[in-house]
């Protein structure tokens, strides 16, 4: 198993390098890198300084190596045009907010989606099951921001039950700040989490249902019943362990998508995460932040894929022996 992990790690590093080359190409080859990385108000003298510091007279591969060095060894992506702070530091400051959102949403989606999906798979002709499936079509077809808007309209504007935006009060949890420790924090979390969870829950319902439909007629389920095991045990242990494999895989991959798609939700709810930071940076042409965000996302997604692969190997004993052999 170790060899397969090492192999995947190398593949991941390869992908990250390729992406960094693409970003480098976009920055340094297309358009004038100086105007990309210098503030729009810089004077000619300042631009000249920047040009020199960027080493634009050096051969391309040398520039690329400098870029890589700065990016990965020093985590230096330049300073934000807006605030002057180092871009990477800005991102790390805002990341916990997005992580909070993404984790809560995924957890909710799995906790609701798996039981509903199993129910829909057990009795597919049932009216309840069919409503669940139709609901799931609605869930993943409705645009994310529309769901958010509707939720704000109903719960914030008309009912005044929940706040329409912003993050609740934060407390330190080790090195990061989280807002999950107070009721106020939860109140602010609820609507954005519900928005994201709707689409993901719909997806998980469909995956769970498909996996259930596939596993139920198999011999080992019948054998479990033939041994007189309670239905709870048959479904809750025998079935669940087998359907968890595709569900965890998909949930893991979707976590990465949620992380990226948080852009939309954070805009709708004015949630101070890295998604909102990205949009603001794009609109204000704060390019160092955009570059930093891109590289971070690339690394994060690649590592996530790797993690999902490892978890898959742990969950499915059949894959383990194939990998270890």
């Amino acid at each position, binding site marked *: 198993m170790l060899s397969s992990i090492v192999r995947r790690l190398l593949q991941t590093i390869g992908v990250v390098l390729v992406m960094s080359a693409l970003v480098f190409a976009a920055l340094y080859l297309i358009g004038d890198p100086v105007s990309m990385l210098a503030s729009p108000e810089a004077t000619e003298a300042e631009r000249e300084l920047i040009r020199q510091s960027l080493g634009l007279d050096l051969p391309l591969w040398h520039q690329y190596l400098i870029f890589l060095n700065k990016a990965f060894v020093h985590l230096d992506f330049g300073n934000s045009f807006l605030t002057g702070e180092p871009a990477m530091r800005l991102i790390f400051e805002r990341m916990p907010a997005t992580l909070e959102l993404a984790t809560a949403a995924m957890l909710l989606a799995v906790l609701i989606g798996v039981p509903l999906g199993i129910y829909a798979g057990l009795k597919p002709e049932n009216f309840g099951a069919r409503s669940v499936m139709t609901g799931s079509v609605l869930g993943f077809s409705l645009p994310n921001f529309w769901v958010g808007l509707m939720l704000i309209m109903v719960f914030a504007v008309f009912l005044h039950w929940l706040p329409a935006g912003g993050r609740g009060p934060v407390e330190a949890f080790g090195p990061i700040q989280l807002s999950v420790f107070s009721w106020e924090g939860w109140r602010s979390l609820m609507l954005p989490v519900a928005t994201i969870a709707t689409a993901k829950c719909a997806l998980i319902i469909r995956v769970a249902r498909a996996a259930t439909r596939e596993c139920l*007629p*198999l*011999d*080992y389920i*019948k*054998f*479990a*019943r*033939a*041994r*007189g*095991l*309670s239905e709870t*045990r048959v479904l809750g*242990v*025998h079935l669940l*362990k*087998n359907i968890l*494999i595709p569900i965890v895989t998909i949930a893991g991959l979707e976590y990465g998508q949620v992380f990226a798609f948080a852009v939309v939700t954070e805009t709708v709810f004015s949630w101070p995460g890295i998604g909102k930071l990205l949009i603001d940076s794009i609109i204000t042409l704060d390019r160092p932040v955009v570059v930093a965000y891109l590289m971070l996302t690339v690394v994060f997604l690649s590592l996530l894929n790797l993690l999902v692969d490892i978890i898959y190997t742990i*969950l*499915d*004993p*059949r894959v383990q*022996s194939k990998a270890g052999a």
Partner: protein
Amino acid sequence: MCPLVSFGTFRQGPLLQTRAPSSSSPCLLDVQGLRTWFHTRAGVVKAVDGVCLQLKQGEILGLVGESGCGKTITGFSLMNLVDKPGRIRAERLFFDGRDLQALSAKEYRALRGNEMAMIFQDPMMTLNPTLRVDTQMIETVQAHESVSRRAARARSIDMLVKVGIPAPEERMCVYPHHLSGGMRQRIAIAIALLNSPKLIIADEPTTALDVTIQGQILYEVQKLCREMGTALIWITHDLAIVSGLADRLAVMYAGRIVETAPTADIIRGARHAYTHGLMASIPTFDTRGKNLFQIPGSTPSPLNMPEGCPFRTRCYRATPQCVHEPVFEETAPAHGVSCWHPGIAA
């Protein structure tokens, strides 16, 4: 020469005395008129259409028939494991003096795996691939008796030794896919025997295994059943295998039992035309060099059974009377046939 011996000589392993228990012992299983029909959109599939079985304590019955004749569904019907849209009905369905049709789902579940156990055909798919062997064995014990995990584990290890698995403590801690087909089937047998059931229904348990393993498993199952006094229904399409194992045979065709008798009686003098055909199809030393016999025609579709006797379209004895459903009669003691023209082969 006794035909029983000739069948024995080309099977692997020594042949145990097939000593049927005395006929005065009470009936363990009494099935009359079992019908399992599937109400599908395409029509009613009469998978089992009038099965009569009797089994005494400790008796071994071989249920023989070709693929698709409904023998597996018969086994599932006895265990109440038939999925929708199938429905089970019977005139009489008694097990150990209890009316199975009157049992609630919970009571039936208490019966399954406890007094009545089943072994499936494909050992690859019978055990859950994501759970360890010991988990699956221990939960079977704990589902029916409140014993400690350790006691359940000890019982499982004992049973594994009985079925002939070496180093059982190690074997238990692995996942099923680490084991060979023969091992897995032995474990399935061990699981079936864990709670000392009165009846085991074995649905073609050796079909998916190598021929060499087949013989071993056959021998072990027979030995264990005799030792523990467990009745056994061995479902198979291979008449030759089961004739060395079973006390009685029941031949099934198109969802019905067409003939049932002690094994020796069937081999010496079968009375139904289908049984004749089955026996004649088996290659023996006498048929060397000659064309193998084939029953003409093919099995009717369960959606479209011929009226009356289902075998009449292929039977060399068919007459216009056969359009009426034949009655299952005892032509000799313990020898029942469902035919208007029973008799020894021509």
